[in-house]
C-alpha cells in the first residue's frame, strides 16, 4: 500500500506566519503614521489659534479637532491589531514546529506499519501463526500511537484557530474604528459657516465704519431740530456708549458727522429737549476723545479737528466745543490748542487791550444760551477744566496762549488769567468762583503739585511754578476766592523754595531775598542737605502768594501739612550732617530751623494781615490750638512725626515758638500760657521733644543714651509724647536724661540739650523775623 504523505496527513493549520508577520509590520507602520499625522495637525491647530483670533477661528479649530479625533484612537487600535498579528504569527510558528515533530513521528510509525504489513504476509504464507499474531499486536499498538498523534495534531489546529480568532477580533476592532470616524458631510458644512467672510476680523472695521456712517447720516440729514431729533440723538448716544470705544467706529462717526455738527451737538441736544442730554453728551464726548486720539483711522477727522484748534470767524460755539471735550480723553497738545483757540487766546487779548471780538464775552457770562444741567456754563471755566486733568496740557495751554499768534512769557499769561477774574460782572460772582477754581487746578497740575514731589520737580513744572509766583508778585490783592485750595497745594509743593528764599547765615543781608518780587536763583550756600529747591522765593513774594489762601482754614491746613513735612525732613538731614561735622561746622540744624521758622513767621504775618486785627488773629490761633489739644498729645507720635501729623507741629511752632525747657518744669509768666491752662507744660514740651526725636532719628551723638523706658521696645523709636507725659516715671527719666546731656556733652559735639535749645531758639528767631 502506498504510504500517504505526512504533510497531507498533517497539513499546517492557519495562515502563513511570514504573511502574518507582514500584516503586523504594515499595521505597525500605519499606526505610527497616524500618530505622526495627529501630532502634525495638532500643531496646525495651535498655529491657527494664535494667528486667527476670532469666534470663527475657535469653531474652525474645533472642527479640525473633531476631524482628527479618531486619529489617536485609530492609531492605537491599529497598533493593537498589529500586536495581535505578531502574537498570531508567533503561535503559528510554534504550531508548525510541533506539527513538524508530529509528521516525523507519523512517518516513523507509518514505516513500521509498512514493515509489519510485509511481515504478516510472509508469516501467513508460511503458516507462522505465532508470528502473525505478534505482528497484528504490533500493528494495533502502532495504530494506537498514530491516533494519539492525530489527537495532538488536532490540539495544534485548535491552538492555531484560537490565535486566528484573537487576531481577527483585533482587526475587526480596528476596522470598526474607521467606520465610526467622523468624516461625514456635516463637518464640511460647519467649516463653510465658520469660514464665512462675515466673520473675518479685518472686516470688523469696515462693519464698524459703515455702522458709524449710518448713525452719523441719520443725525446729519434730519434737519428739523425738534423732539424727534432729540429722540434720535438719544438712540445714537446709546450706540456711542456701546461702540464709542472702538477707534474705527468713533473716527468714522465724527468724520461723517462733519466739522459743524461735531461742534454743535450740545446745543442741538439742549434745544431739541433731550431729557437725557447730560448722559448723552457724555457718551458723545467720550467717543469724540477716542476719535481724536485715533484720527489717523479716517481722513475725514482732519477738518473736524482743525475746526477746534483754529476757531475763528463768527463763533458762538466756544461753549459747545468745551462741552464736547469735557468728558473724553484727548491728546494733551491738541486739547491745549483747542482751549487756547476757544477761550484762552481771547483772555490774553483782552488783558492786552486788543480788539477781541464780542463773542469772547461769552466766556465770562453765558446768560441765556442753551444749557445742559450739570455742565459749567462759564466758557473759560469749562475750558480750563478740560485741560486740568493733564499736567502737560495745562502747561501747554497757558504757555502758548496769546492773541493773534503772539508769544508771551508764561508769567504774563498766568497774570492775564488771574486778572480776568477781577473783571467779572458783579452779577455773576458764582461763575467767577468756578472760574477761579478751574484755573487754580490748572496751575496746580502744571506746577507738578499733583504728580511730583517737592525738591524733585521737573524743569517744565518748576518753570511754570516760577511763572505763578512771579505773576502773583505783580499782583496787588487779586480776587482769588475759589482758588485757595489749589494755590495752597501749589505752595505746599514749593516749601523748599520758600526756605531757600529767606536770608539766613551769610545771606542775612541779601536785599534781593528780602524785597524781591520775583523768584531768584538759589543763593550759593543755601544748599541745605537733602534739599533741592528749583529756585528761591523772596520774603515779600512769599507773603503775596500766601495771602491767596491763608484766609481759608482748610487751605491753610493743606499748606501746613506739607510745610511741616518738609521741615521735619530738612531737620533730620541737617541733624545727620551736624552729627558728623567738625566743631564750628555744625550749625546746619540752626540754619534750617531759622529758615523754616522764618517761613512760618511770614505765614503768620500774612494771616494777620488777611484775617484782620491781631486780636482776631490771636483768637483764631487759640481756636486752632484748642482743637489740636482736644486731639490729645497721644495723637503726636514719638518719631516720624512728619509722616503722622506734620501740620500739628507746624501749627504749634507757628503760634507759640519755643517756651524753653525750663518752663516745662516750672512756673512761667509767659502770657501765652494763660489761654491754655493746664496743658501749658505739655505744649512747652512738644517742640523740644520733637527736636529730640529728630536727633534720635538722625542718630545724633548722645541719643544712644536715651533711657530705654522712653523707647518703644519693638521699634526702638521714641514713645509718643502722650505716653511719656502720662507716666511720671518717664517724665523724670526724660528730665534726667536732658540734664545729663547738658552736663556731659559728647566730645566735639553740641549736647542734645543744647542742640534742642539752639534749634528752638533759631526757629523762634526766624519766626520773629518773618513775622515782623
Amino acid at each position: 500500500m502506498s504510504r500517504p504523505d505526512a504533510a497531507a496527513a498533517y497539513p499546517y493549520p492557519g495562515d502563513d506566519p511570514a504573511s502574518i508577520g507582514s500584516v503586523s509590520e504594515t499595521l505597525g507602520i500605519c499606526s505610527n503614521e497616524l500618530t505622526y499625522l495627529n501630532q502634525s495637525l495638532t500643531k496646525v491647530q495651535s498655529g491657527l489659534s494664535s494667528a486667527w483670533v476670532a469666534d470663527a477661528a475657535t469653531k474652525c479649530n474645533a472642527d479640525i479637532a473633531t476631524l482628527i479625533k479618531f486619529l489617536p484612537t485609530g492609531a492605537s487600535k491599529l497598533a493593537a491589531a498589529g500586536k495581535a498579528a505578531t502574537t498570531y504569527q508567533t503561535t503559528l510558528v510554534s504550531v508548525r514546529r510541533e506539527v513538524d515533530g508530529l509528521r516525523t513521528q507519523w512517518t516513523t510509525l507509518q514505516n513500521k506499519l509498512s514493515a509489519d504489513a510485509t511481515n504478516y504476509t510472509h508469516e501467513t504464507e508460511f503458516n507462522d501463526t505465532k508470528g502473525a499474531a505478534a505482528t497484528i499486536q504490533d500493528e494495533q499498538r502502532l495504530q494506537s500511537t498514530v491516533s494519539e498523534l492525530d489527537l495532538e495534531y488536532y490540539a495544534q489546529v485548535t491552538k492555531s484557530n484560537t490565535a486566528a480568532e484573537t487576531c481577527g477580533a483585533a482587526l475587526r476592532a480596528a476596522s470598526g474604528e474607521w467606520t465610526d470616524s467622523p468624516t461625514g458631510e456635516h463637518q464640511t458644512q460647519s467649516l463653510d459657516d465658520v469660514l464665512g467672510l462675515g466673520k473675518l476680523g479685518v472686516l470688523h472695521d469696515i462693519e464698524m465704519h459703515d455702522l458709524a456712517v449710518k448713525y452719523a447720516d441719520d443725525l446729519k440729514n434730519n434737519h428739523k431740530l425738534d423732539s424727534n431729533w432729540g429722540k434720535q440723538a438719544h438712540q445714537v448716544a446709546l450706540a456711542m456708549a456701546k461702540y464709542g470705544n472702538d477707534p474705527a467706529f468713533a473716527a468714522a462717526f465724527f468724520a461723517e458727522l462733519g466739522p459743524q455738527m461735531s461742534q454743535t451737538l450740545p446745543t442741538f441736544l439742549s434745544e431739541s429737549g433731550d431729557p437725557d442730554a447730560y448722559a448723552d453728551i457724555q457718551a458723545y464726548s467720550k467717543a469724540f476723545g477716542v476719535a481724536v486720539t485715533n484720527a489717523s483711522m479716517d481722513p475725514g477727522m482732519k477738518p473736524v479737528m482743525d475746526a477746534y484748534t483754529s476757531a475763528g470767524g463768527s463763533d458762538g460755539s466756544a461753549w459747545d466745543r468745551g462741552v464736547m471735550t469735557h468728558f473724553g480723553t484727548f491728546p494733551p497738545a491738541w486739547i491745549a490748542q483747542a482751549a487756547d483757540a476757544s477761550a484762552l487766546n481771547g483772555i490774553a487779548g483782552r488783558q492786552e487791550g486788543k480788539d477781541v471780538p464780542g463773542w469772547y464775552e461769552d466766556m465770562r457770562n453765558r446768560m441765556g444760551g442753551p444749557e445742559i444741567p450739570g455742565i459749567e456754563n462759564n466758557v473759560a471755566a469749562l475750558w480750563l477744566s478740560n485741560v486740568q486733568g493733564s499736567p502737560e496740557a495745562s502747561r501747554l495751554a497757558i504757555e502758548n496762549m496769546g492773541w493773534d499768534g503772539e508769544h508771551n512769557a508764561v508769567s504774563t499769561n498766568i497774570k492775564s488769567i488771574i486778572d480776568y477774574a477781577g473783571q467779572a460782572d458783579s452779577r455773576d460772582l458764582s461763575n467767577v468762583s468756578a472760574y477761579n477754581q478751574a484755573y487754580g487746578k490748572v496751575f496746580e497740575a502744571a506746577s507738578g503739585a499733583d504728580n511730583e514731589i517737592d525738591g524733585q520737580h521737573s524743569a517744565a513744572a518748576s518753570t511754570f511754578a516760577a511763572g505763578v509766583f512771579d505773576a502773583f508778585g505783580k499782583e496787588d490783592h487779586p480776587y482769588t476766592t475759589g482758588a485757595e485750595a489749589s494755590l495752597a497745594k501749589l505752595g505746599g509743593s514749593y516749601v523748599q523754595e520758600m526756605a531757600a528764599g529767606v536770608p539766613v547765615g551769610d545771606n542775612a543781608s541779601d536785599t534781593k531775598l528780602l524785597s524781591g518780587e520775583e523768584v531768584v536763583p538759589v543763593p550759593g550756600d543755601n544748599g541745605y542737605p537733602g534739599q533741592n529747591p528749583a529756585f528761591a522765593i523772596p520774603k515779600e513774594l512769599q507773603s503775596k502768594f500766601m495771602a491767596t489762601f491763608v484766609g481759608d482754614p482748610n487751605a491753610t491746613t493743606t499748606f501746613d501739612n506739607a510745610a511741616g513735612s518738609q521741615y521735619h525732613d530738612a531737620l533730620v538731614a541737617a541733624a545727620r550732617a551736624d552729627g558728623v561735622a567738625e566743631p564750628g561746622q555744625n550749625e546746619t540744624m540752626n540754619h534750617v530751623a531759622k529758615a523754616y521758622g522764618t517761613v512760618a513767621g511770614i505765614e503768620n504775618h500774612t494771616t494777620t494781615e488777611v484775617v484782620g486785627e491781631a486780636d482776631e488773629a490771636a483768637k483764631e490761633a487759640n481756636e486752632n490750638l484748642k482743637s489740636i489739644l482736644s486731639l490729645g498729645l497721644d495723637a503726636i507720635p514719638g518719631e516720624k512725626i512728619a509722616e503722622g501729623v506734620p501740620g500739628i507741629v507746624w501749627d504749634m511752632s507757628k503760634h507759640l515758638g519755643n517756651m524753653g525747657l525750663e518752663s516745662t518744669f516750672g512756673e512761667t509768666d509767659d502770657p501765652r500760657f494763660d489761654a491754655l491752662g493746664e496743658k501749658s507744660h505739655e505744649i512747652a514740651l512738644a517742640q523740644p521733644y520733637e527736636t529730640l526725636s529728630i536727633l534720635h532719628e538722625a542718630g545724633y551723638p548722645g541719643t544712644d543714651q536715651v533711657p530705654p523706658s522712653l523707647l518703644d521696645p519693638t521699634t526702638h523709636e521714641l514713645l509718643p509724647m502722650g505716653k511719656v507725659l502720662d507716666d511720671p516715671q518717664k517724665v523724670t527719666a526724660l528730665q534726667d536724661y536732658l540734664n545729663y546731656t547738658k552736663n556731659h556733652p559728647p566730645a566735639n559735639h553740641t549736647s542734645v540739650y543744647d542742640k534742642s535749645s539752639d534749634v528752638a531758639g533759631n526757629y523762634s528767631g526766624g519766626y520773629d523775623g518773618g513775622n515782623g
Partner: protein
Amino acid sequence: MTYFVKHKELESAAQVLKDNTAYADTTKFDLTGISKIGAPAAGEGVGAELAKLETAWLEVLPKFTKELNGLAAKVKASATVYVEVEEAVGGRFTPFAT
C-alpha cells in the same frame, strides 16, 4: 480689538494642512493589499477581517485627506481674501492680532 488675522500665518497653516494631506495620501499609509497578505486558506478568519479593514481604510482615508485638502483651501482663501480687502481699503486697517 480681537478680530485681526495674521494672514501670513494663515497661509502657512494652510500649507501645512496641504502637506499633511499629501502625506496622508502616500503609500506609507497603504493598507491596500493587506487582505491579499492573509492566506486564502484562513477563510472566515483573519483573511476576512483583513479584507474588511482594508475596505474601511480605503473608504475613510480618502475622505479624510479630501477634507484636509478642503480645509487647507479654505484657510488659504481666508488669507487671500484678507489680503485683497487690505489692498482695497488702502492699508487702512492694521492686520495684526492684538
